[in-house]
């Protein structure tokens, strides 16, 4: 028996396939979002004042929705570029599993809902910073910087640095030096993290004409810049330990930051001073640096929260 609410075969064939929620979810770049949620949560938990659990959950939900919406806008804009790159060719838009209008509308609803919910439930300052982070990623980075300059990820990296700042503001209601330092840590972490990836997917970027650093300035210059940012990151990561006033981090964070950044620097030196052996080079040190950079950020922010609740 045919269900009464089913579409007749002739109409079903003519109608476009509806968007699967899994594809809509994939548009939000869930893996990137997990790092955004984590750093936002750590920014909130590291703040010197507590927040009501429901409001804290709402703030993190808004950060996740905002990040997901910005990621969906990025994929909507770059659907053609994604189709030309091996790493991104399986995304829903290049695969034709979603139409672009649905992706754009979904992204718009997520972004708007995240900002308004943050404003009404938490604070309009946090909502304003969230809105800035969405515009920064979707417009400044994706549309303006990425196709134009090899410094795209340096300036655009700021977009990913906002979550701990937003988390902190959600808890305290204002901006102090500590969340700005947390912003700076992610800002300086982004170039070596992303360039390590760009080194081993260089041909993909070259194919679609995105001027990533290894494509435009060459591998040697990229490796040197990775090293410079890793050197700068070492003292910067320890800065929350040395901040004056009540909100500075303790020894647990300080020691973890120096150890984690020391390993980051060691791996960066290996990448920075290396010359490729040929086109068949497996790029193992670059892949190791990329994998470690993700672990580094998780561990650094986890140390900040642990330190806040277990003061020495």
């Amino acid at each position, binding site marked *: 028996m045919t*269900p009464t609410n*089913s*579409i007749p075969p002739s109409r*079903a064939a003519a*109608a476009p*396939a*509806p*968007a*699967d*929620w899994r594809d809509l979810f994939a548009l939000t770049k869930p893996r990137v979002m997990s790092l955004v949620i984590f750093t936002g949560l750590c920014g909130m938990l590291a703040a010197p004042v507590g927040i*009501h659990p*429901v*409001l804290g*959950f*709402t703030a993190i*939900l808004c950060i996740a929705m905002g990040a997901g919406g910005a990621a969906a806008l990025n994929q909507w804009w770059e659907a053609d570029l994604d189709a030309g790159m091996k790493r991104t060719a399986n995304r829903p838009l290049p695969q034709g599993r979603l139409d672009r209008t649905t992706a754009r509308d979904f992204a718009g609803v997520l972004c708007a809902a995240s900002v308004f919910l943050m404003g009404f*439930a938490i604070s309009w300052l946090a909502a304003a910073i969230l809105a800035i982070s969405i515009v920064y990623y979707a417009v400044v980075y994706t549309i303006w910087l990425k196709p134009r300059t090899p410094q795209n990820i340096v300036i655009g990296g700021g977009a990913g640095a906002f979550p701990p700042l937003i988390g902190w503001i959600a808890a305290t209601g204002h901006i102090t030096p500590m969340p700005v330092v947390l912003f700076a840590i992610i800002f300086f972490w982004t170039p070596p993290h992303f360039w390590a990836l760009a080194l081993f997917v260089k041909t993909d970027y070259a194919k679609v004409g995105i001027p990533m650093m290894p494509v435009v300035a060459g591998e040697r210059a990229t490796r040197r810049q990775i090293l410079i940012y890793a050197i700068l990151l070492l003292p910067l990561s320890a800065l929350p330990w040395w901040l004056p006033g009540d909100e500075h981090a303790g020894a647990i964070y300080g020691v973890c930051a120096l150890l984690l950044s020391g390993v980051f620097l060691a791996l960066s030196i290996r990448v920075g001073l290396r010359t490729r052996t040929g086109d068949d080079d497996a790029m193992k040190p670059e892949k190791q640096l990329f994998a470690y950079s993700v672990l580094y950020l998780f561990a650094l922010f986890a140390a900040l929260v642990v330190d806040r609740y277990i003061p020495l």
Partner: protein
Amino acid sequence: MTKSPKNALKEPRTFEEIRRSRNRVLALSLAGFVILVFFISIAKMG
């Protein structure tokens, strides 16, 4: 050859299945939003 359960999962889903699962997720999201707004109101009053 008999299809393994793993392969069976990869069968293309019908229009109806996709629509039904998307409606279910939408309903759950809306219900979640209503519950969230309720608890936000309680938290704000407290």
